[in-house]
């Protein structure tokens, strides 16, 4: 599903946000990328989500080498294969939960009526079937994050990227959101959760630990330069 080899991202000013990261994530995995702030995990999310290209090295998502795709093709890749969940939810203020979720396939060429129908299904799937016509400000934080998750998964993307999905939530809501992500994983979605919360990461099947732009620990693979040949 995801394959990084020697991926490096250098920002203007010489900051090495990623230095030679190699990582493979198989289809159907549930992975935490964990590290303190400044460890490069946000850059990791951007690169995995094709929002940014690596300076050197290769990143391939679902078989596509993102360095070789144009901006249009990357947009199409995101529209069809990647769902995002953000810490700040990023819901449109004036729109109902249903329409917010329906925007998940806005750029996928699906007509409005069909989008709304699928949004309804997705909202039921995240347990908000009774909140479809509420606006974001009428929902609790946990409910808002569920709406954002429904938006991310309503197109059934093979890959879901979650950036600190519980970062703005209280413990109970956060646990609810994590339970939902596990359910989606159980149904077959590949999920990558970026977090600084070690406790949360430890509860997931695989943890990739980052520090200073490098992978310093991977519970499934040994992060050595020969990782490629060591894939089982």
């Amino acid at each position: 599903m995801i394959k990084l080899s020697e991926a490096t991202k250098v920002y203007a000013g010489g900051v090495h946000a990623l230095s030679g990261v190699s990582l493979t994530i198989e289809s159907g995995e549930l992975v935490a990328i964990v590290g303190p702030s400044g460890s490069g995990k946000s850059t990791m999310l951007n690169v995995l989500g094709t929002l940014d290209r690596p300076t050197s090295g290769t990143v391939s998502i679902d078989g596509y080498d993102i360095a070789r795709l144009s901006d249009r093709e990357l947009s199409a890749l995101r529209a069809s294969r990647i769902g995002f969940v953000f810490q700040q939810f990023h819901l449109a203020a004036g729109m109902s939960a249903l329409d917010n979720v329906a925007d998940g396939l806005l750029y996928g060429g699906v007509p409005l009526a069909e989008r709304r129908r699928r949004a309804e299904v997705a909202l039921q799937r995240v347990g908000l079937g009774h909140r479809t016509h509420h606006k974001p400000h009428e929902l609790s934080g946990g409910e808002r994050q569920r709406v954002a998750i429904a938006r991310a998964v309503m197109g059934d993307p093979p890959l879901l990227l979650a950036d600190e999905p519980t970062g703005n939530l209280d413990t109970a809501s956060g646990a609810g959101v994590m339970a939902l992500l596990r359910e989606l994983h159980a149904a077959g979605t590949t999920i990558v959760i970026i977090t600084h919360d070690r406790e949360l990461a430890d509860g997931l099947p695989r943890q990739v630990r980052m520090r200073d732009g490098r992978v310093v620990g991977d519970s499934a693979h040994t992060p050595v330069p020969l990782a490629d040949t060591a894939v089982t």
Partner: protein
Amino acid sequence: MAVVDPPRLVPARMRVRDIVRVGGVGLRTRPTRAFLSALGIAIGIAAMIAVVGISASSQAQLDRQLAALGTNLLTVTPGQTMFGEDAKLPPESEAMIGRIGPVTSVSAVGRVKGEKIYRTDKIPVVNTGGLATYAARVDLPATIGATVRNGTWLNGATARYPAVVLGATAAERLGIGRADPDRQILIGDVWFTVVGILDPVALAPELDSGALIGWEAAESYLGFDGYATVVFTRSDEDQVENVRNVLAATANPQAANEVDVSRPSDALSAKRAAGAAFTGLLLGLGGVALLVGGVGVANTMVISVLERRAEIGLRRSLGATRGQVRTQFLTESLLLSAMGGVGGVLLGAAVTIGYSTFQDWPFSVPFWSVSGGLGATLFIGGLAGLYPAIRASRLSPTEALTTP
């Protein structure tokens, strides 16, 4: 490891309905701002539509007036002799003009010189009020299209006695509101009874400040010399130019060069041309207002893009291409100015209706001004939205998403 190239990725086309919906998101979430910046455009368009509409309505009124008055009235006045002296029309000229084939009616007035008009004999002699005395033929109103506002016109009997009909301005200056058998004014040193007051005469405005008395009365009481100073003729509409060509020679066969012929309706038509020039100037001012409105829309759009960076980032993460982000903001700008344009057209039409109703004019808003106004708003909206839209589309998705 042999890699099979996966299928090419092609972004899906957005449907028109979705483009409009997404373009309207910013307007729905910030209605006050949308309203105010649309108002800027609306004021510009309303100003232009109203200027064009009011001028068109005034011309429609002029056309209606011309149609009612007729354009077939010609006037014959004595000019000057070769030696620069005032010429006179021969006494037979009226009868001779009447014998021109297409001429349907002839009438005349003669200026009675030197006889001043006073409301009473108590008024100092120098306060003449700028009024003139005319001897008028009894058939004058029918020929020049004059109507009596109050009282009656002269008839065969009153034309021989000291009776006077006042023009509209003259009646006003003398302070006489209505005809009355007891109301007398002093012309020269003879008391005349006011028997009627005329409405303003559009085709012979000089009569408005005149006191009209019978031809015979003028001769017998005021020593009028009997020479007509203006001969009015009506002729068949399609023969007016032909009549005009022979009129001078007919009126004074011995000295056709001492006769001036004119067509009073030409003066009204000239007013129309003057009005058009003024309209052009006002239209330019309306255009400036529209331009200011366009700058307002551009400003709103730039702010909107700045404020909505996170939304742009989200849309990019959902798979929007740069082109789709650009289209979104361009659509928003176009919707904004189209709203302003439609509002402005309605406002401008309302102002025109109000003003022409108030003036008792027919109402007219030319189609070209409406379509031109809407076209101009869309052009301005597109121009105003272009730069912000390009900025929005150039925004890197990662930067946009990290905006708080």
